[in-house]
């Protein structure tokens, strides 16, 4: 039971630390990668774009491509680019929809900077780049809407929805969509040009602190004409950071409670066990063991018990966290990227240290009190 309590503490502490670190990594990368300050989408689709970016939930929605032209040269705006989101119903091996993201290679400042780390040339018409969680590597084929594409690059993991997305030239994505079975069910708004529609327009504000003012100015001018809504990237990041902070408070609180419980139970059990073994310690003292040696024996025993619990807890946590990493990522519904080896080793080491020290901390007072007692008292029947 002693081992089980320490194991439970180690399991909760390590699992919580790794999960918190994963979400922290995902949030940091999201803040770096997104690049844009404001995302303009059709009215009512702000949740869809968040779902697509954060969790890779495929979705399709459309906006007039002429809107981006209106933004160029507007005060307060540094850069603009547009993206087209298309949910594919087909992918090799399995019917899980895949998010296709069409990017404009001339203006894109979100995907291209990190695509350039793995692909330095422009993509050909029949080429695509895939996220880290899409099956297939460079040179392999992927079928989308009945057309075969060659994977030109596989992007690094981001912990975001980009990991389960496929990237291609925006014009190619548009032609693919219009030629597919989905074209008749697209429900393109009336009057929307079929050669230039997009899904969202991303804006980098000239002054990041004034991004909201810029967004409001754009809405005032163009909201009615283009049926707009917007998402502030800073608010999205802040929302996830807030949820991460809540999770951290919960798990650290739970870990503290478990640690106190472990220390309390261990202290009680060791106190009772030491009392039962008084004669044994009396014999040791009679044979010449010093008080320090006696305390050392007791502390080593408690260290062994709590170390065994720490190892068991870490093994159980590892058996759940590592094989089920993708499942946990999907269920978290937040950007998350598993920590690297160094961070994992640090978390393991820290958890082991805290859990292993629980036993010695719990029994130190009982051990010192026992060692201070007179030897003859140990051997008396009525002690």
């Amino acid at each position, binding site marked *: 039971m002693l081992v089980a309590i320490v194991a439970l503490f180690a399991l909760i502490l390590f699992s919580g630390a790794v999960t918190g670190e994963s979400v922290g990594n995902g949030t940091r990368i999201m803040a770096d990668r997104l690049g844009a300050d404001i995302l303009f989408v059709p009215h009512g689709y702000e949740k869809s774009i968040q779902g697509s970016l954060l969790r*890779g939930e495929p979705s399709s929605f459309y906006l007039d491509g002429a809107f981006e032209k209106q933004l160029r040269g507007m005060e307060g705006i540094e850069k603009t680019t547009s993206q087209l989101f298309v949910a594919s119903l087909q*992918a*090799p*091996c*399995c*019917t*899980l929809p895949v998010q296709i993201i069409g990017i404009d290679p001339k203006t894109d400042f979100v995907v291209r900077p990190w695509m350039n780390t793995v692909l330095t040339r422009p993509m050909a018409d029949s080429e695509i780049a895939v996220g880290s*969680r*899409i*099956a297939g590597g460079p040179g392999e084929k992927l079928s989308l809407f009945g057309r075969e594409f060659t994977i030109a690059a596989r992007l690094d993991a981001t912990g975001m929805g980009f990991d*389960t997305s496929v990237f291609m030239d925006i014009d190619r994505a548009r032609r693919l969509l219009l030629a597919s079975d989905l074209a008749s069910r697209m429900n393109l708004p009336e009057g929307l040009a079929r050669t230039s529609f997009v899904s969202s327009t991303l804006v980098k504000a000239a002054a990041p602190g004034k991004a909201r003012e810029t967004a409001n100015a754009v809405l005032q001018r163009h909201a009615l004409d283009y049926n707009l809504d917007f998402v502030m990237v800073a608010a999205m990041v802040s929302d996830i950071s807030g949820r991460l902070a809540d999770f951290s408070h919960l798990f650290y609180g739970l870990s503290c409670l478990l640690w106190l419980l472990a220390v309390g139970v261990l202290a009680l059990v060791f106190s009772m066990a030491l009392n039962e073994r008084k004669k044994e310690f009396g014999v040791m003292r009679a044979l010449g063991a010093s008080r320090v040696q006696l305390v050392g024996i007791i502390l080593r025993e408690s260290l062994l018990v709590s170390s065994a619990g720490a190892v068991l807890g870490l093994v159980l946590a590892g*058996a759940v966290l590592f*094989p*089920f990493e*993708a*499942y946990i990522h*999907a269920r978290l519904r937040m950007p998350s990227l598993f920590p690297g080896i160094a961070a994992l080793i640090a978390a393991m080491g820290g958890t082991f240290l805290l859990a292993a020290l629980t036993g010695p901390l719990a029994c130190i007072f009982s051990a010192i009190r026992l060692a201070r007692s007179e030897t003859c008292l140990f051997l008396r029947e009525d002690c």
Partner: protein
Amino acid sequence: MKRSLFAGLPFIALGLLIAATPYCLFPVCAGHVTAASGAFLPMKCFWTARAALGCGGVIACAGIIIALASSPGVRLGAVLALLPLGALVAAFPTVLIGVCQNEMMPCRMGTLPALCLLGTFAGALALITALWLHRQLRNNKGETP
């Protein structure tokens, strides 16, 4: 009798868990692939689930034999048979049949790691139980536990 029940019950529970995992706990994909002939064929994970169901049933039956057999030799034999069965449970979703390639498919995210863990655990438990039963046999020669 009590000791043999103690030895057999974990395997009955494990067998039922392995059988139920791909259908209840971490269900496999429900879709089909279209062959060149136009026929709809179940995906690899469908067959992995069937195989796991069979293995789980055999493990549970072996657990019943372990719990009810009066001969310690029979119990030891049944436990030894569970060693390769545990390896088989882990091998079906990885090398023998496989599951979908896409990392975010339910079978790859949940069913595969669950079956690998359960198969490994079944094999390890079988090894520990076999060693325990072997020691029992050696220490209690001629005595029925």
